[in-house]
C-alpha cells in the first residue's frame, strides 16, 4: 500500500517521504524462466553475486603471492581464516575440520551480504526471511544428516538425554524435539529480524531528517550516524552468531549431548 503511494510520488501529510519498507522490495532486472521455474535475476541475485565475487576475489587475489610476511590484505584474509578456524576448533573440536570450508563459506557469505547491505542504495539480501530460512534449513538438514551418518539410529538418543528420571522422559523428549526442530526458525528469524529492523530504523530516521528540515533535521541525522555504527557492529555480530550457532549445532550432531 505504502509502496504504491511511493511509486506514484504522492505523500499524504505526516507520512514519510520514503516508505521504510521500500528498500526491501525485490526488483527483477532480467526475467529468466527455465522449465516453468522463475529464476529471474533480481537485485537480491545481484548482491549475492557481488558478495560471492568479492569473497572469491579477496581470498584468492590477496593471497596470490603466498608471502611469508603477509601484506595488509593477505593478513586480513588470514585473520578471517584463523577467526573461523578457531571458532570451529573451539566449538566442534578436531572432528570439525572436515566441515571448516562449509562453515567458512557460510560466515563469509552472510558477513558480506550484511556488510554490503550497509552501503547506501544497496540491497540487504539477509533481510529476507526466504533467504535466511533457506540457509538455516540447509544447515539444519546437513547437521541432521551428519548426526545420522555418525550415530545411525542412535542419533534419536539425542532427544532422550542420559541420566534423566524415566517419568520425566515423555515431557523431556517432547521439549527436546521441539527445540531441535525450531532451530532453523530461530536461526533464520534472528538474522532476518535483526537486519530488517536495523535497516527499517535507519530509513525511518532518514525520513525524519528530511521531514524535520534544515533546522530540526540535525538531531535525527546524529542519531542515524550513531545507528549506522551500531548497524555495522550488528552486521558483523549476526554473521558471527549465525556461524557460531552452526558450529554448536554441528557439535551437537557429532558428539550428542
Amino acid at each position, binding site marked *: 500500500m505504502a*509502496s504504491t503511494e511511493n511509486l506514484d510520488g504522492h505523500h499524504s501529510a505526516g507520512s514519510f517521504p520514503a516508505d521504510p*519498507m521500500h528498500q*526491501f*522490495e*525485490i526488483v*527483477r532486472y532480467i526475467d*529468466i524462466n527455465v522449465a516453468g*521455474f*522463475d*529464476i*529471474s*535475476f*533480481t537485485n*537480491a*541475485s545481484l548482491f*549475492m*553475486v557481488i*558478495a*560471492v565475487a568479492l*569473497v*572469491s576475489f579477496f*581470498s*584468492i587475489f590477496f*593471497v596470490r603471492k*603466498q*608471502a*611469508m610476511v*603477509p601484506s595488509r590484505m*593477505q593478513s586480513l*584474509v*588470514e585473520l578471517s*581464516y*584463523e577467526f573461523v578456524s578457531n571458532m570451529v576448533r573451539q566449538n566442534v573440536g578436531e572432528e570439525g575440520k572436515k566441515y*571448516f*570450508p*562449509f562453515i*567458512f*563459506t557460510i560466515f*563469509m*557469505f552472510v558477513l558480506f551480504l550484511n556488510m554490503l547491505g550497509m552501503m547506501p542504495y544497496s540491497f540487504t*539480501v539477509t*533481510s*529476507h*526471511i*526466504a*533467504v535466511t530460512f*533457506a*540457509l538455516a534449513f*540447509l544447515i539444519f538438514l546437513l547437521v541432521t544428516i551428519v548426526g545420522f551418518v555418525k550415530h545411525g539410529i542412535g542419533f534419536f538418543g539425542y532427544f532422550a538425554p542420559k541420566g534423566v528420571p524415566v517419568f520425566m522422559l515423555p515431557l523431556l523428549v517432547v521439549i527436546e524435539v521441539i527445540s531441535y526442530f525450531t532451530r532453523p526458525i530461530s536461526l533464520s528469524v534472528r538474522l*532476518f529480524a535483526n537486519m*530488517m529492523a536495523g535497516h527499517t530504523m535507519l530509513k525511518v530516521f532518514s525520513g525524519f531528517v528530511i521531514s524535520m528540515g534544515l533546522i530540526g533535521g540535525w538531531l535525527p541525522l546524529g542519531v542515524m550516524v550513531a545507528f549506522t555504527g551500531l548497524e555495522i557492529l550488528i552486521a558483523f555480530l549476526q554473521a558471527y552468531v549465525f556461524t557460531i550457532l552452526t558450529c554448536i549445532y554441528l557439535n551437537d550432531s557429532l558428539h550428542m549431548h
Partner: protein
Amino acid sequence: MPQLDFTTFIPQLFWLFASLSFLYLVLSKVALPRISDVIEERNDTIADDLDEAKSLSLEAEKVVDDLRVKLEAAKLQSQKNIMSERKKNLELITLKRKEFEGKVSKEILNSENKINDSKALALKDISLVAEDIAEELLNNLFVRKVEKKDLSKFSKDII
C-alpha cells in the same frame, strides 16, 4: 511487507543456492587450501627458526663453557709455572750467593793471611830497627857497650 511476496521466493532461492554452491566450490577447492598452505608454511618456518636458534644458543653456551674450562686450566697452569720458575730462580740465587760467598770468604782469608804476613814482616823489621836504634841510643848514652843479643831479648819482651 516485500519479504512475504511468495512470487519472489523461487528466484531468490535459486540464486542463493547457485551463489552459495559456487562460493563453496571456489573456497574449498582454490582459496582455503592456499591460505592454509601459507599459514602452515609460516608456522613451520617459525618453528624451524626457533629450533635453529635454540640449537645455536646451546652450541654457543657449550663454547662459552669450554672457554671457561680452558681459561681455568690455563690460569692454574700459569700459576704452577710461576711457582716453579720462582722456586728455580730461588735455588739459582742461593746457589750463586753461596758460590759468591765462598769466593769472597776465600779472598778475605787470603787477604788476612797476606796482611798477617805483612804484619809479621813489618814487626820483624820494626824490632830490628828498634834494636838498632836502641843500640845506637844506648851506646851514645852509656859508656859500656851494649851487646846486641841482650837488646833483642829486651825488645822481644816489650813487644
